[in-house]
Each structure stands twice: as C-alpha cells, then as structure tokens.
C-alpha cells in the first residue's frame, strides 16, 4: 500500500499559512459494506485481547517489581535525575497498562504517584511516607487481587491516596500557576 506513487498536492496560499491537500492516499483500503455485514473486527480484537489475559498477572508482576526496584534505588541513593526518571517511568507504565491488565485501581494509584513526581517542587520535601504509601498500595492491590472484596477496597485506597496527594500538591504549588493548572484541570484527552 505504501509504495504507490504520491498523489498530486494542491496548495492554497493565505496571508500567514498554506493549506495543503491531496486525494486521500488511503482511500483504496476503504470499502463500503452493507448494514447486515457480520464481520466485527472490534469484537475479534477484544476476543484476542482476552486471550492474552493469562499473561497479564505475570506482566503486572514484572512492572510492579520494576517500580519496587526504582523505589529501592531512591531509598539508597536519594533523588537524582536518573533515579527520579526511572521511578517516574515505572509508575507511568503502570498508569497506562494496569487497567488493560485488569488492575484499574493500581493504575489510579500509579497516576497519583506520577502527579507527585511531576509536580512536587522538591521531591526531598514530599512527606516521607507519601511516596512509599503509593508504592505499597500498588503492590498490595496487585498481590491481593484474587481475594474476595478487594475491588472496592482497592478503589477506596487509590481514592484516598489521590486525595492526600492532591491536597499536598495544591498547597505546595500555590505559587506555581503552571503546575497548579496541570494539577487542577481535568483531562481533555479524547476517549472512546
């Protein structure tokens, strides 16, 4: 598909910008089907994703171990550029993956941890147990997930952590408007 000859570009010129259009280069992959077409690529993909579910627990364990190792490095060496970056990346990956792997509350706790790392004016000034509580919560949620009544407990735990973290970050950033906006503004990322 990508080896076809490039289509002719049309360029309109305005005072401060150009508008460039071309015939849709991907139009040949579109086909019209009837309303009764039975093919459902989304359902097929969801089924395939469900087929990976047996590996999610192991993957989640790997990512949690990485988070623990990053935290251990900070306890040993303190916050440096590299230890901070590794902790953030470990938490960020869990934030993005956990819900897909079936651990949404762990993702929420990881998101709260990412917010602390990104917006705390000085990580050494963050209340001593706040970061540790986040990491312990993520580990506990992943470890205890198969037990009864853990879903509501995990949700409540993540919610409370987020509340404490947001209270700290709002107070710590009262003179930093750009961080305050990021902390208080809702996400505008388009969703399904």
């Amino acid at each position: 598909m990508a080896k076809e000859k490039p289509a002719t570009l049309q360029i309109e010129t305005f005072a401060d910008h150009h508008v460039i259009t071309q015939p849709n280069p991907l139009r040949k992959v579109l086909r019209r089907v009837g309303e009764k077409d039975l093919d459902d690529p989304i359902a097929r993909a969801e089924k395939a994703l469900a087929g990976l579910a047996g590996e999610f627990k192991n993957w989640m364990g790997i990512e949690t171990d990485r988070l623990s190792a990053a935290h251990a490095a900070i306890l040993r060496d303190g916050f440096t550029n590299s230890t901070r970056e590794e902790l953030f990346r470990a938490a960020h990956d869990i934030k993005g993956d956990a819900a897909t792997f079936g651990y949404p509350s762990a993702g929420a706790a990881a998101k709260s941890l990412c917010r602390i790392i990104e917006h705390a004016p000085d990580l050494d000034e963050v209340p001593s147990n706040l970061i540790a509580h986040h990491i312990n919560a993520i580990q506990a949620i992943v470890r205890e997930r198969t037990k009864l009544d853990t879903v509501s407990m995990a949700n409540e735990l993540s919610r409370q952590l987020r509340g404490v973290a947001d209270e700290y970050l709002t107070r710590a950033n009262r003179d930093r408007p750009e961080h305050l906006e990021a902390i208080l503004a809702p996400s505008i990322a388009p969703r399904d």
Partner: protein
Amino acid sequence: MFRIDFNKLRFLVCDDNPHMRRILRTLLHSFGAREVYESEDGATALEMYTHYVPDIVITDWSMPIFDGLELAQMIRQPDSKGNPFAPIIMLTGHSEKRRVTVARDAGVTEFLAKPISAKGLYQRILNVVANPRPFIRTKTYFGPDRRRNTSNAYIGPERRIGGEVEVLQQPSLLDKARTTV
C-alpha cells in the same frame, strides 16, 4: 457503513514497553493487518519509518533516545526523507490538557489515552483513513489542520491573522487556589 482492508495497510508501532507492543500487535493482527513493524525507541523508529514507509504510525510518548513527540516532529519535517503526511496516532498514558495540546502542535494526527481498547484504536485508525485532514504550513508549524471541523456558522474567537479577538475575563486558577488553601 465502511470497513477497512487492514491487510493493505502497513503499520509502524513505537513503544519501549514490550507488553504494550504485544497488545498492539495482537489488536492490529486481529483487525486484519499483516504488516506490523515494531520499534522500542525513537531512533530505531525513525530509521524504520524511512525504510519501510508505513501508512500509519502508532507511537508512545515516552521512549528512550528520543521520544514520540520528537519522532512526530522529525516525521513532519517537510524536507524529510520519508513521507511527512503519514497519519501519526499517539498512544500514551499522558492525558493532561498541556500534553494533548503539545502533541497536537507537534503534528500528531490523533491522540489516544491509555488504557487502550480495541474500539478506541479501531476508531482512531478509521478516522485517519476515512477522514484525512488537510495539512497546514506556517512559519512555526507543519502538520494536520488542528481544527477538526471548519464551519461557516462558527461563532467565537478567530485566531488566524485578521480575525476579531474576544477576551473572556475569569479568575485564574492561582487566585482560586489561594482562596481555598
């Protein structure tokens, strides 16, 4: 109703997390794609982009060497070796307003916040295939038109040169925070 012949499309998936690459590969193959190339960092992604000329790029934000944002900026160089018009879908755990606008201004075509879903990915791909936007070149930007819709009935501030400006007064977040903290 439209369907996509995924077996005619070539994808480049860029993510340093092998689990996420596995998930994306699974979803794309389930849609019907046969050519899915993968990279785990920005530099490899750029090489593969130039070599394989993918139809659609799906990239994470945070990657080693250089990230998805820088990858998008390099792809969008008008005089780059590859095709600067290819749709770029950014799939990321970042969902803050600032991040979305930064990605948009780097020339990203579609933004998809994690956690990923089959439906969300399919809809973004369908959108870039079925509803391609014209490209805009200014002194500081080259990429898809950042307005999703243009309408003669639009009422609001005009940000292009020569348009009228409407100023809305409202208390800043800093003032709001100071009264509540």
